[in-house]
């Protein structure tokens, strides 16, 4: 992009110096015009295009049942949880260190219900219902505080949920966990079939992602950001800020529970390690690494962390240290995470568009006049 930048913008300057015929300047301005159109289209269609490409690649990659598919499924499940946490942390300003607990509740809910001879669909209902009920009740306590206190309280909630899974052996089978053998099926959609399950996970991921993006862009999402940055002002304007935080919490908890149900479908086993302290830290790591407050960034973060866990752990024995250091490095040097880099590219594109708009108008009105309004372009060799 910088190369084209230099080429497109340098031409009028050269024309001005040498006073070359109008034709050359016109061709340069046409080229600039083309690039401007391309850039503008990328601003409008870049996101959807990337989504279609990624979606197509995922559908293709999930056709097989090999290691890659398993890896991608893991990534998708954790991405749902990471995006939910980002909705809570990045938009409502409530960073929770207890979300793995709710993932566990969703998964355990399904598994325990099946153990007690409920049909698979009823089990899914019970799992999601439990998560929702728990979110509604605990939210009353949790969102009474914010900032550091909220982190501490959610950490305590997460540890308690883990403690129940670990200690309440009569219900949860303790350390061994509970296996899940039969998955739901309805009509042609039989989740016991590998391919159907994989496509379902992908579809649920897409639905949750789109829902979260819609929430974020809705008036509710905007006022949520307002609550985060200046609660007193929002409250003075008549917004019920506590209710905003509560709703954001319930939404995030519920979607994390959805991820939990998918988790137990994919892994066919749920055990306390899935919801321990270190798992909670991983969720926060995914969100911070991906970029707080971007929804898509944390999904990317989930991809990276799952890769770390599954792949890097084979080659590097001290991979947890590496992950801890990565988190520290991101916090220190790149607070925006990965998505911060994507946003930086977007900003450069917008800046380029503004500059080209100025340039092409000049070119059209008065070919060859040196531009003084914008800073002199840097010509890359």
């Amino acid at each position, binding site marked *: 992009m910088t190369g084209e930048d230099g080429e497109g913008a340098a031409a009028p300057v050269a024309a001005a110096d040498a006073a070359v015929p109008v034709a050359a300047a016109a061709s340069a301005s046409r080229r600039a015009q083309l690039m401007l159109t391309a850039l503008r289209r990328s601003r409008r269609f870049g996101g959807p295009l990337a989504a279609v490409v990624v979606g197509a690649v995922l559908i293709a990659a999930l056709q097989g049942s090999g290691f890659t598919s398993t890896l991608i499924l893991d990534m998708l499940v954790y991405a749902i949880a990471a995006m939910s946490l980002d909705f809570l942390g990045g938009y409502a300003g409530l960073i929770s260190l207890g979300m793995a607990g709710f993932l566990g509740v969703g998964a355990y809910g399904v598994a325990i219900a099946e153990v007690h001879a409920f049909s698979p669909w009823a089990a899914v209902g019970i799992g999601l219902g439990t998560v929702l009920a728990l979110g509604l009740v605990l939210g009353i306590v949790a969102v009474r505080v914010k900032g550091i206190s909220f982190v*501490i309280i959610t950490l305590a909630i997460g540890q308690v949920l883990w403690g129940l899974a670990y200690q309440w*052996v009569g219900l949860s089978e303790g350390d061994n966990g509970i296996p899940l053998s039969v998955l739901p099926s309805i009509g042609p959609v039989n989740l016991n079939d590998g391919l159907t399950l994989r496509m379902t996970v992908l579809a649920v991921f897409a639905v949750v992602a789109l829902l979260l993006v819609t929430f974020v862009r809705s008036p509710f999402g905007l006022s949520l950001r307002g609550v985060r940055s200046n609660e007193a002002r929002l409250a003075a304007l008549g917004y019920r800020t506590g209710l905003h935080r509560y709703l954001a919490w319930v939404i995030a908890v519920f979607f994390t529970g959805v991820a939990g149900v998918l988790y137990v479908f994919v892994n066919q086993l749920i055990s306390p390690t899935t919801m321990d302290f270190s798992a909670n830290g991983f969720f926060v*790591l995914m969100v911070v690494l991906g970029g707080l407050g971007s929804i898509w960034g944390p999904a990317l973060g989930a991809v990276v962390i799952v890769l770390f866990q599954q792949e890097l752990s084979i080659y590097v024995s001290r991979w947890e240290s590496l992950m801890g250091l990565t988190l520290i490095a991101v916090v220190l040097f790149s607070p925006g995470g990965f998505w911060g880099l994507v946003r930086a590219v977007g900003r450069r594109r917008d800046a380029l568009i503004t500059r080209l708009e100025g340039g092409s108008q000049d070119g059209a009105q008065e070919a060859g006049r040196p531009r003084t309004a914008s800073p002199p372009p840097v010509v890359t060799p």
Partner: protein
Amino acid sequence: MPQFLAQTLNGLTLAGIIFLVSSGFTLVFGVMRVTNLSHGAVYLLGGYIGYSVIGVTHNFFYGLAAAAVAMATFGLLLERTLITWLGRSEMSELLATLGLIYVIDDVTLAIWGGSPLTINLPGVLGKSSTLPLDGVVYPNGRIFILGVSIVVALGLYYLLRRTRVGAIIRAGVDDREMVNALGINVRLVFSLVFMLGALLAGFAGVLGGTVLGLYTGADSDILLFALAVVIVGGLGSYEGAILGSIVIGLVDTYGTAYFPAVAYSILFLPVIAVLLVKPQGLLGRPNT
């Protein structure tokens, strides 16, 4: 009845260890507004270092001293590097210290392995004696831990309430800008408080290693205790840490003894109760 008495003493012993950890945590938060999530990891690291030093020197008290000194140094380094670099952003500090937990855990796992270790108390401390109350036979080591934590609690109370340094620290909790404006070297106070917190955690690690053991995950267990304490007592309040430690220590011990299936969750009851009635903690201030 004798069993209940023994459980109460167990609860108070646990409260002593929890107090040593949570007082440092709450002081660091109170003065610096730094939430050091790696505080539990510092406790565990101190315990492991103490274990190794005791293994080499065959002297429990050298181990105790070594852990305290090593962790104080570690705390100073941490405060002068990472915490300083992050420059007062509460959430960044929390996240960076979360990252540090993974590093410390991984390093301790690499050095000391995954199997649980226990530190043995020397001589008479390793034995039991019959208490004058109800004829309960009780380990001397636990009485020792209880005594030590009471002495530390009184010492810290004296430091905070009766000395100039303590006055500065308390003033720092109340109004940091004003303390700075009075020409007091707040940087130095920060370093001292952070060192003190880490020192106490390392010290507690060795004591905790004798009754709770040293194992992977001991750090998050003790961190949860400390967090429950600061929620109950009030984040940043020293007296709150004493009160909270007693509540949490007793609740956890009774819970484990009488309701083992939900012991970990019973811990949460006082936390919820306090949050509903007084979200800032029993002895906390509304604006912290």
